[in-house]
Protein backbone atom coordinates (compact mmCIF):
# COMPACT_ATOMS: atom_id res chain seq x y z
CA UNK A 1 0.00 0.00 0.00
CA UNK A 2 1.39 3.43 -0.79
CA UNK A 3 2.36 5.17 2.42
CA UNK A 4 3.53 8.70 3.30
CA UNK A 5 0.02 10.17 3.65
CA UNK A 6 1.29 12.63 6.21
CA UNK A 7 3.84 14.13 3.89
CA UNK A 8 1.19 14.33 1.19
CA UNK A 9 -0.80 16.43 3.65
CA UNK A 10 2.04 18.92 3.92
CA UNK A 11 2.16 19.01 0.15
CA UNK A 12 -1.55 19.71 -0.02
CA UNK A 13 -1.19 22.39 2.61
CA UNK A 14 1.49 24.05 0.48
CA UNK A 15 -0.80 23.81 -2.53
CA UNK A 16 -3.67 25.40 -0.64
CA UNK A 17 -1.37 28.18 0.45
CA UNK A 18 -0.35 29.00 -3.09
CA UNK A 19 -3.47 28.25 -5.13
CA UNK A 20 -6.42 28.11 -2.83
CA UNK A 21 -8.59 25.34 -1.47
CA UNK A 22 -9.49 22.34 -3.59
CA UNK A 23 -11.61 19.33 -2.80
CA UNK A 24 -9.53 16.37 -1.66
CA UNK A 25 -10.40 12.87 -0.59
CA UNK A 26 -8.55 9.76 0.44
CA UNK A 27 -9.37 6.17 -0.46
CA UNK A 28 -7.20 3.16 0.42
CA UNK A 29 -4.38 5.50 1.30
CA UNK A 30 -4.43 7.34 -2.04
CA UNK A 31 -5.09 11.06 -2.06
CA UNK A 32 -7.06 12.70 -4.85
CA UNK A 33 -7.37 16.43 -5.52
CA UNK A 34 -10.07 17.84 -7.77
CA UNK A 35 -8.92 20.84 -9.77
CA UNK A 36 -11.01 22.95 -12.13
CA UNK A 37 -9.80 22.79 -15.71
CA UNK A 38 -8.68 26.43 -15.93
CA UNK A 39 -6.46 26.14 -12.81
CA UNK A 40 -4.70 22.98 -13.97
CA UNK A 41 -1.42 24.40 -15.35
CA UNK A 42 -0.60 26.41 -12.24
CA UNK A 43 -1.52 23.54 -9.91
CA UNK A 44 0.66 21.10 -11.84
CA UNK A 45 3.61 23.47 -11.87
CA UNK A 46 3.29 24.13 -8.12
CA UNK A 47 3.19 20.39 -7.48
CA UNK A 48 6.18 19.81 -9.71
CA UNK A 49 8.18 22.45 -7.89
CA UNK A 50 7.28 20.95 -4.52
CA UNK A 51 8.82 17.61 -5.38
CA UNK A 52 6.36 15.58 -7.49
CA UNK A 53 8.78 15.38 -10.38
CA UNK A 54 7.57 12.21 -12.08
CA UNK A 55 4.47 12.15 -14.26
CA UNK A 56 3.28 8.58 -14.06
CA UNK A 57 0.16 8.63 -16.20
CA UNK A 58 -2.52 10.74 -17.82
CA UNK A 59 -5.77 8.98 -18.51
CA UNK A 60 -9.48 9.55 -18.59
CA UNK A 61 -12.74 7.98 -17.44
CA UNK A 62 -16.00 8.49 -19.33
CA UNK A 63 -18.85 8.73 -16.82
CA UNK A 64 -21.69 8.46 -19.32
CA UNK A 65 -23.03 5.16 -17.97
CA UNK A 66 -21.93 5.57 -14.38
CA UNK A 67 -24.43 4.45 -11.81
CA UNK A 68 -26.03 6.65 -9.15
CA UNK A 69 -24.90 7.46 -6.52
CA UNK A 70 -21.53 8.52 -7.86
CA UNK A 71 -18.34 7.86 -6.01
CA UNK A 72 -17.28 9.90 -3.08
CA UNK A 73 -16.23 12.90 -5.05
CA UNK A 74 -19.23 15.19 -5.28
CA UNK A 75 -17.36 17.33 -7.77
CA UNK A 76 -17.63 14.62 -10.40
CA UNK A 77 -21.43 14.58 -10.41
CA UNK A 78 -22.86 15.70 -13.72
CA UNK A 79 -19.63 15.81 -15.67
CA UNK A 80 -18.83 13.38 -18.46
CA UNK A 81 -15.07 13.09 -18.64
CA UNK A 82 -12.78 12.82 -15.65
CA UNK A 83 -9.11 13.25 -16.47
CA UNK A 84 -6.64 11.58 -14.17
CA UNK A 85 -3.11 12.88 -13.66
CA UNK A 86 -0.96 10.56 -11.57
CA UNK A 87 2.10 12.21 -10.08
CA UNK A 88 4.90 10.74 -8.01
CA UNK A 89 8.08 11.85 -6.36
CA UNK A 90 11.34 10.03 -6.95
CA UNK A 91 12.89 11.50 -3.82
CA UNK A 92 10.18 10.87 -1.21
CA UNK A 93 7.96 8.23 -2.90
CA UNK A 94 4.80 10.26 -2.42
CA UNK A 95 1.96 9.84 -4.87
CA UNK A 96 -0.89 12.19 -5.70
CA UNK A 97 -3.80 11.93 -8.09
CA UNK A 98 -5.12 15.12 -9.70
CA UNK A 99 -8.62 14.94 -11.16
CA UNK A 100 -10.01 17.35 -13.69
CA UNK A 101 -13.59 17.14 -14.95
CA UNK A 102 -14.59 18.38 -18.39
CA UNK A 103 -17.77 18.22 -20.40
CA UNK A 104 -19.08 17.30 -23.72
CA UNK A 105 -19.25 19.87 -26.45
CA UNK A 106 -15.53 20.48 -27.12
CA UNK A 107 -13.87 19.02 -24.04
CA UNK A 108 -10.53 20.77 -23.70
CA UNK A 109 -7.80 21.27 -21.15
CA UNK A 110 -4.36 22.89 -21.15
CA UNK A 111 -1.48 20.63 -22.08
CA UNK A 112 1.14 19.51 -19.56
CA UNK A 113 3.87 19.14 -22.18
CA UNK A 114 5.75 22.32 -21.09
CA UNK A 115 6.20 20.72 -17.67
CA UNK A 116 6.88 17.08 -18.56
CA UNK A 117 7.92 15.70 -21.91
CA UNK A 118 6.27 12.44 -20.87
CA UNK A 119 2.89 14.13 -21.30
CA UNK A 120 3.34 14.30 -25.07
CA UNK A 121 2.28 10.80 -26.00
CA UNK A 122 -0.01 10.30 -23.01
CA UNK A 123 -2.10 13.28 -24.09
CA UNK A 124 -2.10 12.13 -27.69
CA UNK A 125 -3.54 8.84 -26.54
CA UNK A 126 -6.31 10.52 -24.52
CA UNK A 127 -7.14 12.65 -27.57
CA UNK A 128 -7.23 9.57 -29.78
CA UNK A 129 -9.37 7.40 -27.54
CA UNK A 130 -11.61 10.00 -25.85
CA UNK A 131 -11.55 13.12 -27.95
CA UNK A 132 -10.32 15.58 -25.33
CA UNK A 133 -8.27 18.39 -26.81
CA UNK A 134 -5.10 19.55 -25.12
CA UNK A 135 -4.51 23.20 -25.98
CA UNK A 136 -0.85 23.99 -26.45
CA UNK A 137 0.15 20.46 -27.35
CA UNK A 138 2.86 20.61 -30.05
CA UNK A 139 1.59 17.71 -32.15
CA UNK A 140 -1.92 16.50 -31.33
CA UNK A 141 -2.53 13.56 -33.67
CA UNK A 142 -3.91 10.08 -33.29
CA UNK A 143 -1.57 7.65 -31.65
CA UNK A 144 -3.01 4.13 -31.58
CA UNK A 145 -5.81 4.23 -34.13
CA UNK A 146 -5.16 4.78 -37.84
CA UNK A 147 -5.09 8.39 -39.01
CA UNK A 148 -8.26 7.91 -41.06
CA UNK A 149 -10.29 6.65 -38.13
CA UNK A 150 -13.08 9.04 -37.23
CA UNK A 151 -14.52 7.93 -33.90
CA UNK A 152 -13.09 7.99 -30.40
CA UNK A 153 -13.27 4.31 -29.42
CA UNK A 154 -13.07 4.35 -25.64
CA UNK A 155 -16.12 6.55 -25.23
CA UNK A 156 -19.03 4.69 -23.74
CA UNK A 157 -21.29 5.30 -26.73
CA UNK A 158 -18.92 3.52 -29.11
CA UNK A 159 -19.66 -0.22 -29.27
CA UNK A 160 -17.05 -2.82 -28.34
CA UNK A 161 -17.16 -4.48 -31.74
CA UNK A 162 -16.96 -1.24 -33.57
CA UNK A 163 -19.09 0.01 -36.41
CA UNK A 164 -17.80 -2.28 -39.14
CA UNK A 165 -14.44 -0.58 -39.68
CA UNK A 166 -12.61 -3.83 -39.07
CA UNK A 167 -14.37 -5.52 -42.00
CA UNK A 168 -13.80 -2.77 -44.50
CA UNK A 169 -10.76 -4.06 -46.39
CA UNK A 170 -10.13 -5.53 -49.85
CA UNK A 171 -10.02 -9.32 -50.08
CA UNK A 172 -7.03 -10.93 -51.78
CA UNK A 173 -7.66 -14.30 -53.40
CA UNK A 174 -5.21 -16.78 -54.77
CA UNK A 175 -5.04 -15.69 -58.38
CA UNK A 176 -3.98 -12.15 -57.59
CA UNK A 177 -0.28 -11.75 -58.11
Amino acid sequence: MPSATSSVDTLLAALTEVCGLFETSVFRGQTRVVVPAERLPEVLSVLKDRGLDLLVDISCVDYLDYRDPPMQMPACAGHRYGLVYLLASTATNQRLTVRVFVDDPEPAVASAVPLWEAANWLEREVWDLFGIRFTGHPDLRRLVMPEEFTAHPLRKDYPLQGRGERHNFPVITRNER
Partner: protein
Amino acid sequence: MAVTEFGKLELPENVVVSRLDALANWCRKNSLWPMPFATACCGIELMATGASKHDLSRFGAEVFRFSPRQCDLMIVAGRVVMKMLPVLQRIWLQMHEPKWCISMGACASTGGVFDTYAVVQGVDRFIPVDMYVPGCPPRPEQLIQAIIDLQDKIQREGTITGREFDTVSRQARKRALVEIADPRMIDASRNPVIQREITADAESFAGRS
Protein backbone atom coordinates in the same frame (compact mmCIF):
# COMPACT_ATOMS: atom_id res chain seq x y z
CA MET B 1 0.53 -39.16 -76.42
CA ALA B 2 1.31 -35.96 -74.59
CA VAL B 3 3.42 -33.07 -75.75
CA THR B 4 5.28 -31.64 -72.83
CA GLU B 5 7.23 -28.43 -72.70
CA PHE B 6 10.39 -30.47 -73.23
CA GLY B 7 9.43 -31.45 -76.76
CA LYS B 8 7.59 -34.41 -78.25
CA LEU B 9 8.00 -37.56 -76.23
CA GLU B 10 6.39 -40.90 -76.74
CA LEU B 11 5.38 -41.65 -73.18
CA PRO B 12 2.12 -42.29 -71.34
CA GLU B 13 0.37 -39.07 -70.60
CA ASN B 14 1.89 -36.88 -67.89
CA VAL B 15 4.44 -39.41 -66.64
CA VAL B 16 7.40 -37.08 -66.95
CA VAL B 17 5.51 -34.10 -65.64
CA SER B 18 4.15 -36.00 -62.66
CA ARG B 19 7.60 -37.29 -61.77
CA LEU B 20 8.93 -33.75 -62.06
CA ASP B 21 6.02 -32.51 -60.00
CA ALA B 22 6.82 -35.01 -57.28
CA LEU B 23 10.48 -34.03 -57.33
CA ALA B 24 9.69 -30.33 -57.25
CA ASN B 25 7.20 -30.80 -54.44
CA TRP B 26 9.72 -32.79 -52.46
CA CYS B 27 12.28 -30.03 -52.85
CA ARG B 28 9.86 -27.29 -52.00
CA LYS B 29 8.34 -28.96 -48.98
CA ASN B 30 11.65 -29.75 -47.37
CA SER B 31 13.04 -26.26 -47.71
CA LEU B 32 10.22 -23.97 -46.79
CA TRP B 33 11.59 -20.58 -45.91
CA PRO B 34 9.21 -18.99 -43.43
CA MET B 35 8.42 -15.31 -43.38
CA PRO B 36 7.62 -14.72 -39.73
CA PHE B 37 4.83 -12.20 -39.58
CA ALA B 38 5.02 -12.25 -35.82
CA THR B 39 2.88 -9.63 -34.16
CA ALA B 40 2.11 -10.79 -30.62
CA CYS B 41 2.41 -13.69 -28.16
CA CYS B 42 2.38 -16.32 -30.88
CA GLY B 43 5.53 -14.68 -32.15
CA ILE B 44 7.31 -15.75 -29.00
CA GLU B 45 6.21 -19.34 -29.50
CA LEU B 46 7.37 -19.04 -33.09
CA MET B 47 10.78 -17.95 -31.86
CA ALA B 48 10.74 -20.81 -29.36
CA THR B 49 9.98 -23.22 -32.20
CA GLY B 50 13.01 -21.97 -34.03
CA ALA B 51 15.21 -22.08 -30.93
CA SER B 52 17.21 -25.05 -29.79
CA LYS B 53 14.70 -27.09 -27.78
CA HIS B 54 12.03 -27.52 -30.48
CA ASP B 55 14.22 -27.16 -33.47
CA LEU B 56 12.52 -26.16 -36.69
CA SER B 57 15.63 -26.66 -38.76
CA ARG B 58 15.01 -30.40 -38.58
CA PHE B 59 12.27 -29.75 -41.12
CA GLY B 60 14.28 -27.48 -43.32
CA ALA B 61 12.44 -24.38 -42.20
CA GLU B 62 14.94 -22.66 -39.93
CA VAL B 63 15.79 -19.91 -42.38
CA PHE B 64 13.59 -17.08 -41.12
CA ARG B 65 14.08 -14.51 -43.78
CA PHE B 66 12.46 -11.20 -42.98
CA SER B 67 12.30 -10.14 -46.57
CA PRO B 68 9.16 -11.34 -48.34
CA ARG B 69 10.96 -11.58 -51.66
CA GLN B 70 13.03 -14.45 -50.31
CA CYS B 71 10.34 -16.50 -48.60
CA ASP B 72 7.67 -18.90 -49.57
CA LEU B 73 5.79 -19.56 -46.33
CA MET B 74 4.16 -16.76 -44.41
CA ILE B 75 3.38 -17.61 -40.80
CA VAL B 76 0.93 -15.07 -39.43
CA ALA B 77 1.61 -15.39 -35.72
CA GLY B 78 -0.52 -13.16 -33.58
CA ARG B 79 -3.47 -10.85 -33.80
CA VAL B 80 -3.73 -8.60 -36.83
CA VAL B 81 -5.34 -5.23 -36.25
CA MET B 82 -6.91 -2.83 -38.70
CA LYS B 83 -3.82 -0.69 -38.89
CA MET B 84 -1.61 -3.67 -39.65
CA LEU B 85 -3.78 -5.43 -42.23
CA PRO B 86 -2.71 -3.33 -45.24
CA VAL B 87 0.89 -4.13 -44.28
CA LEU B 88 0.05 -7.83 -44.17
CA GLN B 89 -1.60 -7.68 -47.56
CA ARG B 90 1.27 -5.78 -49.09
CA ILE B 91 3.77 -8.31 -47.79
CA TRP B 92 1.63 -11.21 -49.06
CA LEU B 93 1.55 -9.65 -52.50
CA GLN B 94 5.31 -9.17 -52.46
CA MET B 95 5.96 -12.86 -51.92
CA HIS B 96 6.60 -14.92 -55.03
CA GLU B 97 4.58 -17.92 -56.15
CA PRO B 98 4.35 -20.67 -55.01
CA LYS B 99 3.56 -19.38 -51.57
CA TRP B 100 1.61 -20.71 -48.65
CA CYS B 101 0.21 -19.19 -45.49
CA ILE B 102 -0.12 -20.64 -42.02
CA SER B 103 -2.42 -18.79 -39.67
CA MET B 104 -0.93 -19.50 -36.26
CA GLY B 105 -2.98 -19.14 -33.16
CA ALA B 106 -6.56 -18.29 -32.36
CA CYS B 107 -6.19 -14.58 -33.04
CA ALA B 108 -4.92 -14.96 -36.58
CA SER B 109 -7.46 -17.66 -37.40
CA THR B 110 -10.60 -16.08 -35.97
CA GLY B 111 -9.80 -13.05 -33.90
CA GLY B 112 -9.34 -15.08 -30.73
CA VAL B 113 -10.31 -13.48 -27.45
CA PHE B 114 -10.28 -10.06 -29.09
CA ASP B 115 -13.72 -9.50 -30.58
CA THR B 116 -13.15 -5.75 -30.57
CA TYR B 117 -13.33 -2.76 -32.86
CA ALA B 118 -9.70 -2.98 -33.86
CA VAL B 119 -8.90 -6.66 -34.42
CA VAL B 120 -9.55 -8.38 -37.72
CA GLN B 121 -11.65 -11.47 -37.04
CA GLY B 122 -9.44 -13.92 -38.87
CA VAL B 123 -6.86 -13.11 -41.51
CA ASP B 124 -8.49 -15.60 -43.86
CA ARG B 125 -11.15 -12.98 -44.50
CA PHE B 126 -8.58 -10.96 -46.39
CA ILE B 127 -5.73 -13.25 -47.51
CA PRO B 128 -5.84 -16.91 -48.54
CA VAL B 129 -4.77 -19.27 -45.76
CA ASP B 130 -3.65 -22.86 -46.18
CA MET B 131 -3.25 -24.13 -42.64
CA TYR B 132 -4.73 -23.08 -39.33
CA VAL B 133 -3.06 -23.78 -36.00
CA PRO B 134 -5.37 -23.54 -32.98
CA GLY B 135 -4.08 -22.53 -29.58
CA CYS B 136 -3.50 -19.45 -27.56
CA PRO B 137 -0.58 -19.63 -28.07
CA PRO B 138 -0.10 -22.98 -29.79
CA ARG B 139 2.68 -25.08 -28.37
CA PRO B 140 5.75 -25.38 -30.58
CA GLU B 141 4.85 -29.01 -31.20
CA GLN B 142 1.52 -27.86 -32.67
CA LEU B 143 3.25 -25.48 -35.03
CA ILE B 144 5.65 -28.20 -36.10
CA GLN B 145 2.67 -30.49 -36.75
CA ALA B 146 1.13 -27.76 -38.88
CA ILE B 147 4.30 -27.47 -40.91
CA ILE B 148 4.40 -31.23 -41.37
CA ASP B 149 0.76 -31.20 -42.51
CA LEU B 150 1.54 -28.37 -44.89
CA GLN B 151 4.42 -30.39 -46.25
CA ASP B 152 2.00 -33.26 -46.92
CA LYS B 153 -0.34 -30.85 -48.63
CA ILE B 154 2.45 -29.54 -50.83
CA GLN B 155 3.52 -33.06 -51.73
CA ARG B 156 -0.02 -34.08 -52.65
CA GLU B 157 -1.17 -31.03 -54.51
CA GLY B 158 1.78 -29.10 -55.81
CA THR B 159 2.87 -28.71 -59.41
CA ILE B 160 6.24 -27.86 -60.79
CA THR B 161 5.00 -24.60 -62.24
CA GLY B 162 3.13 -23.54 -59.14
CA ARG B 163 -0.11 -23.14 -61.10
CA GLU B 164 -2.17 -25.27 -58.72
CA PHE B 165 -3.61 -22.10 -57.25
CA ASP B 166 -5.26 -21.06 -60.49
CA THR B 167 -8.07 -23.59 -60.31
CA VAL B 168 -11.48 -22.20 -59.56
CA SER B 169 -12.02 -24.22 -56.41
CA ARG B 170 -8.99 -22.56 -54.83
CA GLN B 171 -10.55 -19.16 -55.27
CA ALA B 172 -13.48 -19.80 -52.99
CA ARG B 173 -13.14 -17.42 -50.15
CA LYS B 174 -14.41 -17.85 -46.67
CA ARG B 175 -17.96 -16.64 -46.34
CA ALA B 176 -17.90 -13.57 -44.13
CA LEU B 177 -19.96 -13.81 -41.00
CA VAL B 178 -22.83 -11.47 -40.41
CA GLU B 179 -21.86 -8.31 -38.60
CA ILE B 180 -23.07 -8.32 -35.02
CA ALA B 181 -25.20 -5.33 -34.16
CA ASP B 182 -25.40 -5.67 -30.40
CA PRO B 183 -22.26 -4.20 -28.81
CA ARG B 184 -22.70 -6.01 -25.50
CA MET B 185 -22.68 -9.44 -27.04
CA ILE B 186 -19.35 -11.05 -26.38
CA ASP B 187 -20.34 -14.55 -27.48
CA ALA B 188 -21.24 -14.32 -31.16
CA SER B 189 -22.95 -17.69 -31.30
CA ARG B 190 -25.79 -16.36 -29.18
CA ASN B 191 -26.83 -14.08 -32.01
CA PRO B 192 -29.87 -15.71 -33.69
CA VAL B 193 -28.63 -14.97 -37.22
CA ILE B 194 -25.31 -16.67 -36.49
CA GLN B 195 -27.14 -19.57 -34.87
CA ARG B 196 -29.16 -20.09 -38.05
CA GLU B 197 -25.98 -20.07 -40.09
CA ILE B 198 -24.28 -22.55 -37.82
CA THR B 199 -27.31 -24.87 -38.01
CA ALA B 200 -27.41 -24.55 -41.79
CA ASP B 201 -23.72 -25.41 -41.99
CA ALA B 202 -24.19 -28.49 -39.82
CA GLU B 203 -27.15 -29.69 -41.89
CA SER B 204 -25.35 -29.26 -45.19
CA PHE B 205 -22.32 -31.09 -43.83
CA ALA B 206 -24.49 -33.98 -42.63
CA GLY B 207 -26.15 -34.08 -46.06
CA ARG B 208 -22.80 -34.41 -47.83
CA SER B 209 -21.46 -37.29 -45.79
